[in-house]
């Protein structure tokens, strides 16, 4: 489960198999921010040849799931896992094969049963390409 972390990549908990399938690479993993990058390849596109929206929404979901994990602590999370209940994203600009995209996730508020977060996706040149808001439910199995 560590294929997403090449040389120089940071240490952290297991990333999602789905994120590894897509090719996302963790650049930062802390309770303040989780940052994932990806260099777009032809298999990340839609029929018009630009980046598929699902690439960004998948990385946003991963970044938020991970930053909430960092904030909650891995042990807590194993007892009471969290999962996405709602997300939205606005796509402001396109990206193409060869472009590097960077997605950052941050926690807005961490409650007992609900966590709120936001995510931003930028191209390598710094341009904001998408903005998202995500809500997670925390499932306390001990209750």
């Amino acid at each position, binding site marked *: *489960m560590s294929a997403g972390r090449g040389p120089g990549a940071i240490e952290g*908990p*297991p*990333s*999602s*198999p*789905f*994120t*590894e*399938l*897509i090719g996302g690479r963790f650049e930062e993993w802390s309770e303040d921010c989780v940052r994932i990058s990806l260099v777009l390849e*032809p*298999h*990340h*596109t*839609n*029929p*018009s*040849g*630009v980046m*598929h*929206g*699902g*690439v960004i*929404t*998948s*990385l946003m*979901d*991963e970044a938020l*799931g991970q930053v909430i*994990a960092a904030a909650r602590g891995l042990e807590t999370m194993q007892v009471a*896992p969290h*999962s*996405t*209940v*709602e*997300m*939205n*994203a*606005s*796509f402001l600009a*396109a990206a193409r094969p060869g472009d590097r995209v960077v997605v950052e996730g941050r926690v807005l508020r961490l409650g007992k049963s609900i966590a709120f977060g936001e995510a931003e996706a930028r191209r390598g040149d710094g341009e904001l390409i998408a903005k998202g808001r995500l809500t997670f439910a925390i499932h306390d199995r001990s209750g």
Partner: protein
Amino acid sequence: MAERGVAPFTAFIGAEMEELREGYARLSLVLQERHTSPNGAMHGGVIMTLMDSALGASLGALRGQEARRNPHATVEMNAGFLAGARVGDRIVVEGRVIHMGKSIAFGEAEARHNDGDLIAKGRLTFAIRGGSR
């Protein structure tokens, strides 16, 4: 570049187009280990990807040749996740165009378990480039 209506990214993650007609598309996927989160359940990105693809394709089928001249692109999407799904589950995602204007199109998507249980519901908005009808 790709099988009719199926985005390279959608084919890459393993989804199949089951039905495609004007304003409607249905995709399916059998969940495998590679589609999961660290907790072993389906990653939300799988559903978001299939919803985006289903709507993009259904709108493409509705617009026909015009979609090649002036491609459409997702500008906004949301989804509510109502239930989880696990490895081995077959999920079906349907996308429907609700309204198509000159420069904007609206659609909705539903993801269900094979047995019909609703897993997620989404709303998507597309921009139509160079819309001039």
